[in-house]
């Protein structure tokens, strides 16, 4: 595109970017505000961040969130990567149909997936004594949400890889395992890392699905923030939210960096 655009386009675009980042910026700024109530700026402080360290509820929720995100991402990465590899290399009946199924969690309204899983877990509970809503059900739900994202990202990466590289390795005498270990896996790696990082943020930020599939005692950070927003926000929650924002943003930048680097290489 070499056509000259009027400077108005640029101005409008910059305004839209300001609009996109306004809510994030406000939360970040208020997390350093001395004022406990209201929206007036009264001075700079890091006190709210320090107080978080003594907030038992927030610490427990943070621990739950991290545990949930790590466990579900680990499982989803293994399942999703194997799936992406299988789908892009082999044929099986119903593959096209399953490809559509895989896109359901990407587009479905969160709340529909959430209530479907709630109904399912309620059904299982009827037949299985001791099966309670809590961390386990949340982990199962998050894995379901994550598998498609990982599979789609890894598969996109596989589509970019030249299958002739694998053939060349085989021609040079490498067996299937050696070829996989030294050619295919390194080629897939950027996709796997990017996909699992995206899945990690997905789990970290998920509220709706967690809210419906959790049980008593298993509170995550988004659920904690939601109940605080309903009760009235304290500056400590701003600090907590800012920390989550920074972690998510850093993850996305890492993913973009990984993708960008592999694209340049091509």
């Amino acid at each position, binding site marked *: 595109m070499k056509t000259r655009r009027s400077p108005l386009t*640029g101005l409008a675009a910059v305004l839209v970017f300001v609009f996109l980042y306004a809510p994030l910026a406000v939360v970040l700024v208020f997390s350093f505000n001395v004022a406990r109530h209201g929206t007036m700026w009264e001075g700079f402080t890091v006190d709210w961040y320090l107080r978080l360290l003594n907030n038992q509820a927030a610490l427990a929720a943070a621990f739950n969130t991290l545990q949930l995100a790590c466990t579900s991402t680990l499982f989803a990465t293994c399942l999703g990567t194997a799936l992406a590899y299988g789908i892009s290399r082999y044929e099986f009946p119903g593959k096209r149909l399953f490809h559509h199924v895989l896109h359901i969690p990407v587009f479905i309204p969160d709340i529909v997936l959430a209530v479907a899983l709630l109904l399912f877990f309620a059904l299982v509970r009827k037949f299985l004594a001791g099966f309670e809503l809590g961390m386990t059900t949340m982990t199962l739900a998050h894995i379901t949400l994550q598998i498609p994202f990982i599979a789609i990202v890894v598969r996109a990466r596989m589509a970019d890889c030249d299958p002739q590289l694998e053939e060349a390795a*085989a021609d040079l005498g490498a067996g299937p395992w050696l070829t996989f270990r030294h050619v295919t896996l390194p080629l897939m790696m950027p996709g796997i890392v990017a996909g699992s990082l995206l899945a990690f943020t997905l789990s970290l930020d998920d509220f709706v699905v967690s809210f419906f599939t959790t049980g008593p005692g298993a509170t995550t950070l988004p659920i904690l923030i939601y109940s605080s927003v309903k009760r009235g926000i304290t500056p400590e929650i701003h600090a907590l939210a800012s920390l989550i924002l920074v972690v998510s943003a850093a993850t996305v930048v890492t993913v973009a960096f990984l993708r960008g680097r592999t694209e340049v290489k091509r």
Partner: protein
Amino acid sequence: MPSAPTESTKVKNRRPRQAVHFGEPLPLGAHLCRASWLCGPSVTWMMLFLVGPLLFVVAMSFAQRGDDGEIVWRFTTENYARLFGQGALGFDPVQPLILARSLGVGLLTAILCLLAGLPVAFFIAGLPHRWKGAALTLVVIPFWTNLLVRTYGWQLILAPDGWIARGLRTANWLAADGELYPGWPAVLIALVCDYLPFMILPLYTSVEKLDPALEEAAADLGASPLRAFWSVVLPQIRPGLIAGCVLVFLPASGQFVIPDLLGGAKLALLGNAVQQQFGASRDWPYGSAIAVVALLVMGAGLWLHTRVTRGRREVALP
């Protein structure tokens, strides 16, 4: 005969790709065997935790609610009739209004996103090559951050004693006791802010592919910039435009958090109605019926999207 070559390629594509696997041809049985242990676990997982539960929701939507909120497995289409306006005393508009409101909000959000997204798409497409990736990353970062945090960020911005509200009051555009939220404008602002990336990405993909020569030709032939945009640029970016609108409309019409925090009880959308039935009202069969309708809306939108993008759905993922 232009149709002949496409026919032959079709036949070729239908055969499993068995030529290449580590340099050796692979029989169909081996394909199945390897696919089953690679894809089997995930396929089973998605059947158990996604397809099964969704089918269960469909089944539940035809059940009845008992007097104490328990589920009575007796077939009925009452839930759907209620959603489309059949009340105890004839036509009851409350429930159909929720559906209409959701579709309307989704449509309005899509239009606003389109208006805000077009300049951004053109702006990024006009940037030097090395800046494009960074600009696109800047677009998707907010999307991957916590929705709750962004929504309450808007609560802070639009707060009664915030500077926007005070500025509007000084300009006499807002009553002295007026509030910016809960209400429609706040919900729409937050929705547009939330789903803009879904609009910008497909739009950008289309704008990137624009042929500038055509626009120049239109200008040379005497078309005004507006006319050139309308009859030359717009038809070229139509796939991205429709894809973007569908991708914004679908999640926006099923949103639950934003209307909950910024809209108040009067502006319930489909998502809030589902939550209400599964929460306080404890009418799971009716809640399931609402969820099924939301699913059908999604299915229709996806069908349109697939047709427009001709199956290249990967562009959708930010």
